[in-house]
C-alpha cells in the first residue's frame, strides 16, 4: 500500500513568489494534516481536514497561506507571497480519523527554500 505522497520534494524560490505543495493521503484516510517543521523543531500543525472540511486552521497564517481539499482526497497548500521566514519543511500526514488512537502517517515532506 502506498504511503502519503508529497510533491515536490524540494523547492527553491525567490521571496515574494508564490509556491504550492501537493499531498495525496493514504487511500481511505478521511483526516489530512499539514504541518510546518522549522529547522531544529518538531512539526507544528497548520491545518486539519475532515474530508473536505477544514476543521482546525487556527495556526494557519491566513494572510499568505491557503489550503484546499476539494474532493476530500488530495490537498494543496499554497503560500503567496513567500517570505524568507517560510523556509522550512512542510509535512503532510493522514489518518483514518482524528481521534488520536489512529496513527498519523507522514509523507516525506517538501523542503522549501526562500531566497
Amino acid at each position, binding site marked *: 500500500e502506498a*504511503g*502519503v505522497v508529497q510533491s515536490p*520534494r524540494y523547492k527553491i524560490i525567490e521571496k515574494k513568489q508564490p509556491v504550492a505543495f501537493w499531498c495525496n493521503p493514504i487511500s481511505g484516510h478521511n483526516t489530512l*494534516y499539514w504541518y510546518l517543521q522549522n529547522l*531544529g*523543531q*518538531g*512539526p*507544528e*500543525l497548520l491545518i*486539519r481536514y475532515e474530508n473536505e472540511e477544514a476543521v*482546525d486552521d487556527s495556526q494557519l497564517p491566513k494572510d499568505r497561506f491557503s489550503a484546499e481539499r476539494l474532493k476530500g482526497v488530495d490537498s494543496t497548500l499554497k503560500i503567496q507571497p513567500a517570505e524568507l521566514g517560510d523556509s522550512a519543511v512542510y*509535512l503532510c*500526514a493522514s489518518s483514518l480519523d*482524528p*481521534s*488520536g*488512537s489512529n*496513527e*498519523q*502517517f*507522514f*509523507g*516525506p*515532506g517538501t523542503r522549501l527554500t526562500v531566497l
Partner: protein
Amino acid sequence: AQSVTQPDIHITVSEGASLELRCNYSYGATPYLFWYVQSPGQGLQLLLKYFSGDTLVQGIKGFEAEFKRSQSSFNLRKPSVHWSDAAEYFCAGFWGNKLVFGAGTILRVKS
C-alpha cells in the same frame, strides 16, 4: 498550552551501548503519548504509542518506552543501539484532536 519537552538536543552513544531519550509533557490530563523517528529525507515513522494500561510499551526496532505519571515522563529506551538507529527522535502528546511534538533529539551513533 500543552507542551512536550525533550531536554536533550543531541545525544551520542557507542554502537552496542544502551540508550535513553527523555521526554516530559506538561501537567494536566495525561495525553496519548507517541515516539516518532525521522531519518534524513524521510517522513516521521511511529515507533510506539501509549494510551493507557501497562506503563511499559514495546515498539518496533527493539525500542520500548515507560510512562511515569508521577514524573510526567515518557522516556524511550533501547538496550543495544545499532548504527542504523542514528536519526532524530520526536516525542509527541495528543490533546484535544491535536498532536503536539517536542523539539526532537538527534541521536548520533559512534562505532
